[in-house]
């Protein structure tokens, strides 16, 4: 456990000493601040627009950061051969994966926290009410990023950085459009329907975590069509996300334990 913690801490340290991370963070904050003049257009809608734009910004840049550091921090160890000094230590290879994952998740927690505080500050400046719904939306967003990170690590355990990043982003796009894809699948011939439906079920359903922008008002946030998000839904989505991330990480550990570091 100490070893996992040491690796997680080192990963966190590497991430926060990385300049690209700050570039992404600055862009994310830029998007949130963008809501300031936008909101001025109509006073009544101001808070809603800010929340929508802000959450979308956190999600977009959260995903980019997850993919970037998820892929980068695993690959760098192999590319830079730092793993040659690490694997020979009394360390299980799966501990490396867990440590990396926890370190990256800690970094994301920090990034999401910074962006959320920016969003709250903007809302505060607009004298908009700050509701607990926002916390629910951000919680779900964070769980989404945990899933994306696990996927990024999974691809990194056997593929090149470019392909890992690409696959992960493609999976994010698919995962965010599961409902349109489901409609598409319904139009396929019956045999294909089954296969495609099954394949879709294997992919992460990121829409679970997606808080529908237009439905987000002060009191309620909703997901998909008209299902309101309460804490029990958040718990359900979190359980799904954690379960998915765990399975994906177990697979990554299995692959990682068997590969040669050449």
């Amino acid at each position: 456990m100490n070893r996992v913690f040491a690796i997680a801490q080192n990963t966190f340290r590497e991430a926060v000493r990385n300049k690209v991370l700050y570039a992404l963070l600055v862009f994310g904050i830029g998007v949130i601040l963008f809501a300031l003049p936008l909101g001025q257009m109509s006073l009544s809608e101001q808070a809603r627009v800010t929340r929508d734009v802000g959450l979308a910004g956190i999600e977009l840049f959260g995903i980019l950061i997850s993919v970037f550091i998820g892929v980068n921090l695993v690959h760098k160890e192999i590319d830079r051969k730092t793993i040659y000094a690490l694997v020979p230590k009394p360390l299980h290879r799966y501990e490396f994966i867990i440590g990396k994952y926890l370190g990256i998740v800690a970094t994301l927690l920090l990034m999401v926290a910074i962006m959320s505080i920016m969003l709250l500050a903007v809302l505060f400046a607009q004298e908009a009410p700050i509701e607990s719904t926002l916390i629910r939306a951000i919680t779900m967003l964070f769980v989404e990023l945990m899933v994306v990170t696990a996927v990024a690590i999974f691809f990194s355990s056997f593929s090149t950085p470019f392909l890992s990043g690409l696959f992960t982003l493609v999976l994010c796009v698919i995962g965010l459009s599961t409902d349109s894809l489901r409609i598409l699948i319904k139009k396929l011939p019956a045999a294909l329907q089954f296969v495609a439906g099954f394949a879709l079920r294997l992919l992460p359903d990121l829409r679970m975590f997606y808080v529908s922008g237009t439905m987000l008002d002060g009191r309620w946030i909703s997901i998909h069509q008209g299902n309101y998000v309460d804490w029990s839904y958040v718990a359900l989505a979190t359980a799904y996300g954690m379960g998915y991330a765990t399975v994906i990480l177990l697979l990554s550990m299995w692959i990682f334990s068997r590969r040669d570091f050449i």
Partner: protein
Amino acid sequence: MSAVLKVEDLAKTFILWEKGLVRKKIRAVESVSFSVEKNEIFGFVGPNGAGKTTTIKMLMGLIFPSAGTIEILGRRLIGHKTVDIEAKRVIGFLPENPYFYDYLTGRELLDFVGRLFGIPGPERQRRIHDLLDLVGLGRAGNLALRKYSKGMLQRIGIAQALINNPELVILDEPMSGLDPIGRKEIRDLIVQLRDQGKTVFFSTHILSDVELICNRVAIVVGGKLRDVGPLDKLLSPRLLHTEVVLETAGERREHRLPPTEDVDAFLLRALSEGHKVISVTPRRESIEDLFVREVEQSDTGMGAQHKLGREARP
């Protein structure tokens, strides 16, 4: 004497896909067996592409052998796609051309590695201090590794290999890229480690280093083990030739006498003819000669493999 490291029939075959289609096998290491005894300095010698690094990577559980066994202090290191981490506890390892986290300082790196070994805080700090002194980086400890020179990286690499006070120290090309003074310092350090009771296994292609400090050497060429033993036993005691330098009217000339020639008679004749004898040097086989002999033998026999290996390297 007991074996600290015992390797039997170790082999590694890499599969390469040429243009993604043609499957090609590269036998990087073929049935290598040797054992390293307690408290010796064991040199693992071979030309570029001989399979030294591949062998060491197997010893460190970085790559899985295609065949063979590795025992460390009687513990089986590699099972089926598993590595015994207890066996790794007693090993210190320096990779070839080491790279470490360049965003860390030397001290941070040692601290991180110490924590991986579970060394408790105060003890860890003490060891970090001692090791930085030992490798001569006492004042560079708080400098980011990004700013280290190659020699400094090599030294911090040795320091991190020693943090767990290992019984067996495995170094892949510890002297590569160092200037003569740096190399001497590393050699002295290796001897010092042996004097502390540790066992050192290191790979190199710099023969003079081997000659100076190794108790025993293994010579590997083209993935195969050619010879193992104390250096003086491996070198043929046979006289190659005798070099005689004579001076005549201020002009020096070197004569090479074949081992069959009577050197005394040659000298008497030379003196009687008015030459001055400057030096007489019997030349026996040096480690370079042995090395060349081994490589040449493998080039004529199983040489294809070795050549292939050399091509694959830049």
